[in-house]
């Protein structure tokens, strides 16, 4: 049985991290050079960790699947990054950011981790500004802020609608500085396919060189995965095409516990689906909800005329518009958290009030903002987003309201980690979106960038030393031992099996089918029957995968279809993991909504008596066997757990 010990330091919450750092074990500079660390992923978490550890003197090997570290999907984050700076003098503080994050996560996050996150948030902004990240500024030269969902203060720093890009380029530049100095070695176009464990500790990886097609072995004293979330299990999501959960699943298959997989964030403001050839969904930044107002028609007949294309949104007079978020949640209005906004949109569309030909869209309207502030000001705030929307839909948001609909965006669940960000496998760490710890059941906007950089710059570089300090006498590992042999052989067998199927279907066609099952049965509103059906359908689809898949070409050289096939094999396992967790969690909280558990007004109904814990799943040796659940009880010392209220 795995040990689930969160290892939260003693003492009052505001002193835990300071105490930890004061008493943790360190590695002296001479010894750091003798220690190797593998970091998989070069997004905000991976790049910042690689840069920081390299700068400290460790020897780092940093892997990514793209052609350059700068392509990681963190680059696509639009809106901003939260930090408790209180530059606006609006009453913000470390405590308030901590509180908002725990409440936004529907009281399912680990208190001590979130407090540390809020504590280091301010340093992130300092760090990024020093790197030359061009955050938006006011005329006086000070940094500008805006508001995001789930907060009543303005604590979000931003760089136009390209905050993720600018933060990632900052981390990338620090990383490349270390590459230049020789402390970090880069392995681009390399994909981790397995974890190598020696004597119970993570000691290396098997990676496929995506250019030559060869399997390669790499060893280290510790392995860090920073490989993002599993949103692409749903096929259509706002994730990049290459985003996958294979590194995380490889560690899960090797014994790392997977925590809270059912917590999937459906983002309320995405461009609606337009056809069955669509490859991905495009996010429209949450920042748009600062000035845009969300509505559907009050009258069903108006909605039906919109659906038939007989009228447009601008033809409906003000008094016939239902600004349903402002109506239901007067205190937060259009800035309610994402899960609340998404469910409210679904509720209206389910009742028939959708505004496009599929009936699956609501309006996000800027006409009043343009009237209040002028077109130039709105263009300065959101110009690039409006342009992107127009390029995709052929409609100008300056003239006609945007159409939006919820889409899978982010996954709060992930590999279970303790306070030190170490998984249940010794020497294996998980940072950024691929761990589970900070966002509970729902992540607030602009908090993903904060967490990625907090983990990479300010948390892992400390906590990993507590582990590495007793590894200094262990020499570098050869990669020809039996454990590496076995791991590589297993990966080769997996690849051979896929080529040998020689069926008729492409990877994408099966992935799309998985996506439909996930969206229909494991999506925004879940039921016991639906989830059970979903699990069965995925099992059947797995059979189809192993009997009817076609992977063209050979293992040598570039073979994109092989890459996708290996990832899809893992998405199938991931899909069932999400469904199993959702089935067992007989409550509604954050991104997990069970129709059986809602209030009379349709709000999520938590069950703190029975489900106030982290659900941790253990792999049972093969993909078809149901995983086993373990629990990490949550223990709140500071915050009083209560029903989330965004109404008043």
């Amino acid at each position, binding site marked *: 049985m795995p040990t689930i010990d969160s290892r939260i330091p003693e003492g009052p919450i505001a002193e835990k991290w300071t105490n930890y750092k004061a008493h943790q074990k360190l590695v002296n500079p001479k010894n750091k050079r003798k220690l190797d660390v593998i970091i998989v992923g070069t997004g905000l978490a991976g790049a910042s960790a690689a840069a920081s550890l390299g700068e400290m003197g460790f020897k780092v090997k940093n892997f990514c699947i793209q052609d350059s570290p*700068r392509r990681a999907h963190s680059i696509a984050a639009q809106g901003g990054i939260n930090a408790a700076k209180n530059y606006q003098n609006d009453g913000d503080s470390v405590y308030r950011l901590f509180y908002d994050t725990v409440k936004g996560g529907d009281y399912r996050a680990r208190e001590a981790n979130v407090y540390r996150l809020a504590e280091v948030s301010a340093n992130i902004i300092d760090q990024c500004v020093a790197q030359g990240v*061009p955050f938006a500024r006011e005329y006086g030269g000070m940094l500008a802020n805006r508001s995001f969902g789930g907060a009543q203060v303005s604590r979000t720093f931003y760089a136009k609608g390209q905050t993720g*890009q600018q933060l990632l380029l900052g981390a990338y530049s620090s990383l490349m500085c270390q590459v230049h100095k020789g402390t970090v070695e880069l392995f681009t176009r390399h994909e981790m396919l397995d974890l190598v464990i020696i004597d119970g500790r993570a000691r290396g990886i098997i990676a496929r060189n995506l250019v030559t097609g060869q399997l390669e072995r790499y060893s280290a004293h510790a392995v860090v995965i920073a490989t993002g979330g599993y949103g692409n299990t749903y096929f259509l999501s706002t994730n990049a095409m290459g985003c996958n959960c294979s590194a995380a699943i490889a560690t899960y298959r090797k014994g790392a516990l997977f925590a809270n997989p059912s917590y999937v964030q459906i983002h309320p403001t995405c461009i609606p689906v337009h056809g069955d050839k669509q490859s991905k969904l495009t996010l429209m930044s949450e920042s748009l909800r600062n000035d845009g107002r969300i509505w559907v028609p009050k009258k069903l007949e108006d909605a039906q005329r919109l659906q038939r294309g007989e009228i447009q949104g601008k033809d409906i007079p003000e008094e016939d518009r239902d600004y349903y978020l402002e109506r239901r949640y007067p205190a937060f209005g259009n800035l309610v958290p994402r899960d609340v906004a998404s469910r409210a949109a679904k509720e209206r569309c389910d009742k028939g009030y959708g505004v496009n030909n599929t009936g699956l869209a609501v309006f996000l309207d800027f006409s009043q903002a343009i009237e209040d502030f002028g077109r130039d000001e709105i263009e300065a705030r959101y110009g690039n987003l409006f342009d992107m929307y127009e*390029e*995709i839909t052929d409609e100008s948001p300056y003239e006609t309201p945007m159409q939006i609909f919820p889409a899978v965006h982010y996954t709060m669940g992930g590999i279970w980690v303790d306070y030190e960000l170490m998984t249940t496998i010794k020497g294996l760490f998980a940072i950024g979106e691929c761990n589970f710890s900070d966002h509970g059941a729902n992540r607030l906007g602009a908090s993903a960038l904060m967490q990625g950089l907090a983990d990479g710059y300010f948390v892992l570089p400390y906590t990993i030393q507590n582990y590495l300090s007793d590894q200094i006498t262990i020499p570098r590992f050869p990669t020809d031992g039996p454990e590496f042999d076995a791991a590589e052989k297993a990966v080769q067998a997996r690849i051979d099996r896929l080529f040998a199927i020689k069926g008729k279907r*492409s990877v994408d066609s099966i992935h799309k089918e998985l996506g439909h099952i996930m969206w229909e049965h494991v999506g925004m509103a879940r039921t016991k029957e639906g989830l059970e059906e979903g699990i069965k359908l995925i099992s059947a689809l797995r059979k189809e995968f192993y009997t009817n898949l076609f992977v063209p070409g050979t293992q040598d050289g570039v073979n994109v279809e092989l890459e996708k096939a290996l990832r899809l094999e893992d998405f199938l396992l991931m899909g069932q993991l999400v469904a199993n967790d959702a089935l067992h969690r007989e409550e509604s909280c954050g991104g997990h909504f069970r129709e059986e558990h809602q209030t009379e007004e349709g709000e999520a109904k938590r069950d703190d008596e029975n489900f106030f814990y982290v659900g941790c799943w253990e792999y049972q040796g093969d993909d078809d066997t149901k995983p086993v659940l373990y629990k990490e009880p949550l223990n709140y010392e500071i915050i009083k757990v209560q029903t989330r209220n965004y109404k008043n």
Partner: protein
Amino acid sequence: MAKNISFTIRYWKQNGPKDAGHFEERVMKDIPDDTSFLEMLDILNEQLINDGKEPFTFDHDCREGICGMCSLYINGTPHGKTERGATTCQLYMRRFKDGETITVEPWRSAAFPVIKDCMVDRSAFDKIQAAGGYTTIRTGQAQDANAILIPKEDADEAMDCATCIGCGACVAACKNGSAMLFVSSKVSQLALLPQGKPEAAKRAKAMVAKMDELGFGNCTNTRACEAVCPKNETIANIARLNRHFIKAKLAD
């Protein structure tokens, strides 16, 4: 409302940097014009796979115009022609006519060797970045972010330079295969901010030296680069780079 179009797609196949390469063609029928260009290529690949053939290989990832991964030379223009500048992934089929032949090639430059089909190796950009595209500050040692005030105009201008996505369209468009627009955008971003000033001259020199070493050509001010830049970087950046470069040379 979307309408359907049919056309011939002529795409480049090349098995590695040493292979001579050739075009292949396929007639694409009834493609909805609200399909993106890359989704159209997904459909092409689905058809090829269903015929038991190897699909056409190209780089792509975020499909939101920000990661810089996609890199196709379409009908003679990097990323294809749009009104306001966009990446390949933001190009939609409504920009094409029924019955036309669409030619797709890789970025062609000595510094970007072909890996397969239209997938090229742009690691030269990473090497230029590693030569000096950063401020050398240590993690955790930064002062308060508002301690240095930066005029909004400077911050905005730095932001405009910083939006370069490193796709390499500028190199592909340039008859000399110059990377000056890419290099100058990074140099300009950091030179415009107080944090980047101390190392500005050194940075310019190091990045230009690396660029020359890697086989990129010289800039002869043809402005082909800025015409195709999906993020609207301008050659004003190149002028700024030249100033810092001369300053560094004079100091030698």
